[in-house]
């Protein structure tokens, strides 16, 4: 128990105090606010609820937006997957023995290929041998040209 806890005031001392406080607050008790409910509504941006047709239309709009978003996402995904596929392989002309041999003969003026191309095979011995063999076969396959007589000056021309 607290030794100096406030004991209730005796009634004969409380009543004048009550009267003094009542009198002091009396003018304030007559004061009224001049603001209206519209100011509260403006403060909270009061808005009436939307009617149901508008809610259905809003739902349809949202579904349309989602459909378009899904289509664009699918398009972007498909494009990204297709872009990582390996490009079609270019025909490697270095495997053609004749071409490889020609490149060898041309020397430094030969057609330059990318460094990662398999066309560098022309430097190999196998490539040289194949080129020589092909040249020999070409020489064998050459047919003798038909003789053109002088009496037919324009014969044999295209």
């Amino acid at each position, binding site marked *: 128990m*607290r030794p*100096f*806890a*406030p*004991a*209730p*005031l005796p009634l004969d*001392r*409380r009543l*004048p*105090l*009550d009267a*003094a*406080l*009542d*009198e*002091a*607050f*009396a*003018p*304030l*008790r007559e*004061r*009224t*606010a*001049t*603001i*209206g*409910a519209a*100011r*509260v*509504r403006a*403060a*909270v941006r*009061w808005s*009436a*609820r939307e009617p149901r047709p508008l809610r259905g239309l809003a739902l349809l709009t949202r579904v349309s937006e989602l459909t378009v978003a899904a289509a664009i996402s699918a398009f972007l995904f498909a494009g990204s997957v297709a872009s990582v596929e390996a490009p079609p392989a270019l025909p490697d002309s270095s495997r053609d023995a004749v071409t490889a041999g020609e490149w060898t003969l041309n020397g430094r003026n030969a057609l330059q290929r990318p460094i990662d191309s398999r066309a560098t095979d022309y430097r190999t011995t196998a490539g040289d041998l194949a080129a020589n063999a092909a040249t020999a076969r070409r020489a064998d396959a050459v047919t003798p040209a038909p003789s053109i007589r002088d009496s037919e000056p324009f014969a044999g021309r295209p």
Partner: protein
Amino acid sequence: MTRQPRAKGESLGAELRGDRELVHAARAGEILAFDNLFYRYRDGIYRLGLAITKDPSAADEIVVDTFARAHRAIERLEPDDSLRPWLYRVAVNLSYNRRPRKGVTFSSLDDGTEDIPTDGESPSDAAERAERRRVVLECVDALGAKHKVVVVLHYLNGLNLAEIAEIIEVPVGTVKSRLHYALRKLRVQLSLHPGLDFEPAEAFGATEEQMQSHAR
């Protein structure tokens, strides 16, 4: 107790409904229900804010802020009977958390009408009454915040101890203790003014230091 005139915008049909029904109607989108709640408690909250801040424009803003919070919380408000404790609690917190305007001091709540003699009252009596009122309000302002709010809610807003306890969220015994302490301190302060006919402080037993130690 005289019934106060019906506030502007309060219709008879809505007046019959309790706060709980009005809250549910406002939650369902009935704007007039929220307006009726506003006009039902607007003046009480305004007076409470005015007594604490002594600034009429601040009191207006406290009213708006209090009901704006009520509107935002309308979905979860479930008043048992009256919405008043919830609204007053918000208003008290807003009043004490409000920063005073820089360079502006409000020394009095007088609106210039207190010195006007009433019927059958002499001008000297009116001046004496106004002076007595000024002294009492100064003594109330000198109280600490937790004691002042109890005095204001009890003597200005007319709330009983249980309602005050619900507003400031303390037990009823604590409210009673604070009110007694505030009245004792007021009496001590008022006894220093010889024109107010209050007995000296020595007559009450406990000294000022003892009361302050109890308050701590």
